């Protein structure tokens, strides 16, 4: 039935494997494996950041949410973009100046302590795995819908491909898969948006006028409040979106792929333009689907609205556009999961194995072997979890990943570079409290508990009423980091902070350049 879509999937697979083949020739050292030898240019990394970040959840999920609930779906688009100001102003440059391969490197630049590194690595792995399960489960369901391939095989195909990219091509293959995907995604979204806009005679006002009558929501489609009814939950979600991005490990490691802080900055600027243009276009996707596919057909294909964009493509451009957009969605999934495998694997191999188990004494060869095996291990674990979670609604895992990133990682990154008194006890308590509070709050939230069977994973009254824990867990992460510091007797080293301050703000490490 979807023969054309199937051929385009094969084209994507062939293209990405070709990239991996060439990348594998340039993946001999740990620096090449983890950071593509820091040789990417600003614009290359800008596209790669965009490709790493714009997940299938943004492409298919937001388009569907806007189509079904109007304005509220657009909240995600706004939060996902404005978050880049936090990345640009506060995180990207110090991170590039202090770190080497992982986020934990940055924290360890100040606190040379195994426990600090271990907890930072644990957070990286938790966030990456949560995010990856959500992506893989989504991918399995999506490919099943698009190609009719069974869920189990779909997850295995994506899982094997992501493993091959990372194991053989490391960061070089991952980056180029992300760049190619970002270009394809922008092209596909642009074509659809242009057709939708043309159908409304290139008039924004006409587009808004027409969607007002196109959905069962009627006039209220254009007003906020169709999806988010609880004000605190809305604000909590927005908090996690804007503060979580700057703590997502798979985004943070992208800044090690360029040579210095000014280039890291340039790459964020490029990424912000690309990502912003993409999220503006989600309106055209959502409104187009609402107007030309229709509520009933979108919900019939997938209750969450995930099929809105592919169905819109079919309605506008027939089989070819449907096949193209499906292939783009497939490439999108592959690029994001590859980045996630790499970030989790680098925490295992670089932080746990090399720095903690081997005291930083492992040889190049041992480190490369560890990095490759860690990638395989992370992939197998994620595939198994995704197969186990097939019947569950795991969309909340993405917001959980953002919440952990905002509550456990961001406070520590900020305090490491800005707070002179901050110490190891504060870093450890902050990270653990941020992680555990997010996990516990989600475990007792409406994501997991619902009084009616079939709505959530377990049946019962949720103890915590908000679906998004950020409004509680983010302050807890900060407070724990500060209290942990103030209550411990451990003296901080002023000289060390001076060094961090200079390095973070200037990148001066030695006199060789």
């Amino acid at each position, binding site marked *: 039935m979807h023969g054309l879509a199937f051929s385009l999937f094969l084209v994507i697979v062939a293209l990405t494997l070709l990239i991996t083949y060439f990348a594998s020739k340039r993946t001999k050292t740990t620096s090449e494996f983890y950071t593509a030898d820091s040789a990417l240019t600003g614009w290359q990394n800008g596209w790669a950041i965009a490709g790493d970040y714009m997940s299938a959840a943004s492409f298919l999920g937001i388009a569907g949410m806007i189509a079904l609930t109007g304005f509220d779906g657009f909240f995600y688009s706004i939060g996902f973009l404005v978050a880049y100001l936090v990345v640009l102003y506060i995180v990207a440059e110090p991170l590039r100046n202090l770190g080497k391969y992982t986020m934990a490197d940055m924290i360890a630049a100040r606190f040379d302590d195994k426990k600090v590194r271990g907890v930072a690595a644990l957070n990286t792995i938790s966030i990456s795995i949560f995010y990856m399960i959500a992506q893989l489960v989504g991918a399995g369901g999506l490919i099943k819908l698009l190609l009719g391939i069974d869920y189990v095989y779909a997850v295995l195909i994506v899982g094997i491909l992501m493993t091959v990219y990372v194991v053989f091509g490391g960061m070089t293959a991952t980056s180029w898969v992300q760049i190619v995907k970002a270009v394809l995604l922008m092209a596909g979204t642009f074509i659809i948006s242009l057709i939708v806009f043309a159908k409304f005679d290139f008039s924004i006002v006409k587009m808004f006028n027409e969607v007002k009558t196109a959905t069962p929501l009627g006039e209220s489609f254009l007003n906020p409040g169709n999806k988010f009814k609880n004000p605190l939950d809305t604000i909590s979600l927005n908090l996690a979106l804007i503060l979580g991005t700057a703590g997502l490990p798979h985004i943070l490691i992208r800044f090690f792929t360029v040579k210095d802080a000014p280039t890291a900055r340039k790459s964020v600027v490029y990424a912000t333009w690309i990502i912003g243009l993409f999220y503006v276009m989600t309106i055209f996707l959502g409104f187009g689907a609402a107007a030309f596919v229709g509520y009933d057909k979108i919900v019939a294909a997938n209750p969450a609205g995930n099929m809105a964009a592919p169905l819109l493509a079919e309605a506008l451009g027939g089989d070819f556009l449907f096949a193209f957009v499906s292939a783009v969605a497939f490439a999108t999934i592959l690029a994001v999961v590859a980045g996630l495998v790499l970030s989790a694997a680098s925490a295992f191999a670089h932080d746990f194995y090399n720095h903690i188990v081997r005291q930083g004494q492992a040889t190049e060869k041992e480190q490369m072997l560890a990095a490759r095996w860690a990638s395989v291990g992370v992939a197998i674990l994620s595939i198994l979890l995704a197969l186990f979670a097939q019947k569950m609604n795991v969309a909340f895992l993405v917001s959980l990943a953002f919440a952990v990133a905002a509550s456990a990682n961001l406070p520590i990154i900020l305090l490491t570079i800005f707070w002179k008194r901050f110490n190891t006890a504060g870093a450890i308590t902050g990270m653990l409290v941020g992680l555990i509070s997010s996990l516990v709050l989600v475990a007792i939230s409406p994501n997991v508990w619902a009084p009616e069977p079939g709505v959530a994973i377990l049946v019962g009254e949720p103890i915590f009423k908000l679906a998004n824990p950020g409004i509680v867990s983010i302050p807890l992460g900060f407070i724990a980091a500060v209290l942990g510091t103030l209550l411990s007797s451990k003296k901080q080293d002023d000289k060390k902070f001076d060094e961090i301050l*200079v390095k973070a703000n200037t990148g001066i490490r030695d006199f060789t350049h």
Partner: protein
Amino acid sequence: MEMKQFSSEPPSASINYSEVVQSSSFQQLMREKRRFILPFSLFFLAFYFALPILTSYSKVLNTPAIGSVSWAWVFAFAQFIMTWTLCMLYSKRAARFDEMVEQIRQEAKEGGNV
């Protein structure tokens, strides 16, 4: 401490970071960075959270601005314009930070006795 030994030492041992921190050029860099980043960060956070707070607790943004396009949408689009504008403003300002960093690097190279 003398700064005569070069290559054989581990690189970071040759820089007295506390001295760099106290140098006037570094202090000026920190001051200028703070003067830009702090107010602009507070601004974009306020601008960003104003949208969900207004849409959650009031209906003022539901009034039409242009045709069926309500103020909520205008404010939503303004978030994009705001992000791109602040992005470019920072990028421009940071070029000056880079020049200051270059000067600090030169001073540190010359021996840090500024």
